[in-house]
């Protein structure tokens, strides 16, 4: 297992390099940079643009820019004031040493930008995932145990539907129903808020926080409920026909114990594995929910960065997400081996 892990980690390194080169090439080969006179940079005067280019190091050849992005520029002289003379050593450390650079649009360190929003996204996605699992697990189990019952048919149909509903449409429909149409019978205000994390003027109130969570969590969780209930139904069906389940019944255990304690345990193994694989996609999916519900998280920040063509922001977030995906693949393998002693890696 140790050797297997070491090998997988070693394989991840060239993979990340490949991805980072690919991303870097993609962003930079397309003509026009942040100072090319497209988009917002139209308003920057040409002389000023030249100076900015030298300050940001955008006048250097692309391979060198990539090396600087990766390894920093504190080993070479740079043109800090943009007058055309490289007079002092650079200050960037490169992403390999944890320096992801500055956001072009806010001029704050990328990591700081991420750190500010990470807790908000973690909160939203954590609750979304919890809600999804709390609903999907019992639904999936009952649906499998009562295969082809009315309940099962409804659940199966629903899970097809749930996976086909675009999150962004669901979000709009929820706003339409719970914000625009339904009103609070006492105050006459909209029943639920349509955006933000809390009411700005009011102080902290748990009820207010929860109210702001209901719509985004619903919009985000539906697809996951559909996916996990379908997945668990399928993996439950695999398990409940196995001999050891029959043995449990033969021992005279109550049906409830057989299903929920003996069968579910093994059926959850693939679910836990797929959960590890899904985590990065949960974050990527946050783009729609956070954009529609004005949730100040990473997804909306990414969207904003795309609007601004804020390269350092976009590339850092992409490379970090790709890294998390590789790690979560590895994590899935480890969890699988840990939970299921039959699995052997070498």
């Amino acid at each position, binding site marked *: 297992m140790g050797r297997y892990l070491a090998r997988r980690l070693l394989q991840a390194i060239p993979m990340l390099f490949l991805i980072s080169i690919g991303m870097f090439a993609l962003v930079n080969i397309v003509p026009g940079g942040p100072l090319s006179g497209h988009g917002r940079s139209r308003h920057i005067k040409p002389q000023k643009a030249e100076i900015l280019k030298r300050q940001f190091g955008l006048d250097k050849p692309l391979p060198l820019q990539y090396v600087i992005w990766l390894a920093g520029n504190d080993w070479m002289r740079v043109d800090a004031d943009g007058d055309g003379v490289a007079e002092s050593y650079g200050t960037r450390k490169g992403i390999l040493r944890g320096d992801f650079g500055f956001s072009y649009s806010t001029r704050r360190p990328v990591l700081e930008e991420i750190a500010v929003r990470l807790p908000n996204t973690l909160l939203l996605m954590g609750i979304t995932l919890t809600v999804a699992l709390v609903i999907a697990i019992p639904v999936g189990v009952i649906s499998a145990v009562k295969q082809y019952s009315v309940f099962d048919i409804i659940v199966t149909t629903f899970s097809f539907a749930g996976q086909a509903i675009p999150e962004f449409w669901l979000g709009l429909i929820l706003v339409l129903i719970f914000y625009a149409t339904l009103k609070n019978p006492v105050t006459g205000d909209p029943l639920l808020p349509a955006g933000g994390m809390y009411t700005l003027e009011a102080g902290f109130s748990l009820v207010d926080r929860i109210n702001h969570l209901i719509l985004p969590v619903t919009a985000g969780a539906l697809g996951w409920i559909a996916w996990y209930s379908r997945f668990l139904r399928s993996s439950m069906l695999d398990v409940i026909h196995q001999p050891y389940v029959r043995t449990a019944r033969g021992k005279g255990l109550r049906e409830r114990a057989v299903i929920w304690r003996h069968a579910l345990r093994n059926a959850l193994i693939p679910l836990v594995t*797929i959960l590890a694989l899904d985590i990065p996609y949960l974050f990527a999916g946050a783009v729609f929910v956070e954009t529609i519900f004005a949730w100040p998280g990473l997804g909306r920040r990414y969207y904003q960065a795309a609007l601004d*063509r804020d390269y350092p922001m*976009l590339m850092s977030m992409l490379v970090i997400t790709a890294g998390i995906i590789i790690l979560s693949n590895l994590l899935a393998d480890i969890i699988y081996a840990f939970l299921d002693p039959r699995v052997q890696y070498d």
Partner: protein
Amino acid sequence: MSIPEHRDDLGTTALLAEEAGPARSMAAAVWRRFRRHPGAIASAALLLLLVLGVVLASFSPYDPEKSDLRVRLEPPSWHHPMGTDPLGRDMLTRVLYGGRISLVVGLLVVTITLVAGVTVGSLAGYFGGWVDNVLMRITDATLTLPSLLVLILLGALLREVGGDFFRRNNVLTIALVIGLLSWMTVARLVRAAFLTIREQEFVIASRALGASGLRIILRHILPNAIGPIIVESTLGLGWAIMGEAGLSFLGFGIQPPTPSWGNLLSNAQEHLSKHPWLAIFPGLMIFLTIISVNYIGDGLRDAFDPYKVLQKVGEV
């Protein structure tokens, strides 16, 4: 990813006993099993209806892009079954034209996926060695990309930098961008087919008879992988349509005034509370298309894999 082997969705209760008749073509056998999946058949009918509507959109009395300010933001009525938009354009016409764009993007993506996936998978599987190694590392790396985020990045880049070219070839570029991120599963399927079939006697025999490499690939190996490839392409169609809609919703996909389901939804956002019909219909179309495509994919998966149908019925 390890999905449990046992698939058992409702609907297919085909018994294979009657399959033991005289040999028929594979297509006929697949079609016979597909027919028994009620969800898939209903979905195929719905999708056909949708395609018909989209094709017949040209006969609409209204123009999809010309505004008519006398009839701005009218609710659904007999004349305008889906209402009109802020510029007085008939929403039904725009939704149908948008459907054209969405379906064309979807089909283009599937074509790109098939061409790229089959090429990469065949090269890797046929040659093996370092070719296989390089191609599969690229496949793995592409699979590791967070596709939605990369789509947004590419869409944003193209929208700002591509300028006129991007606008004129909007549909094609968006299809290329989505296709760039969706060929990997097909490539892996094809490669896997090569690895299992390459060394089998009938392939060796045909090589001994002097068949060329290309003939072996096209005649002997690919037909054996056709089932999973078709299923994967069907599900890929749904993925592509959803991807285009999402990208256009965020403003990085199909650019107005050309309607697409995604940008129609995007424009509906600001009118949501007063003119909800603008948001309801385009989304409903996306939903119906994707659910049909998914049901059809599910039906095809069962139809191509009689063993799993047997499992479902409990005879294995």
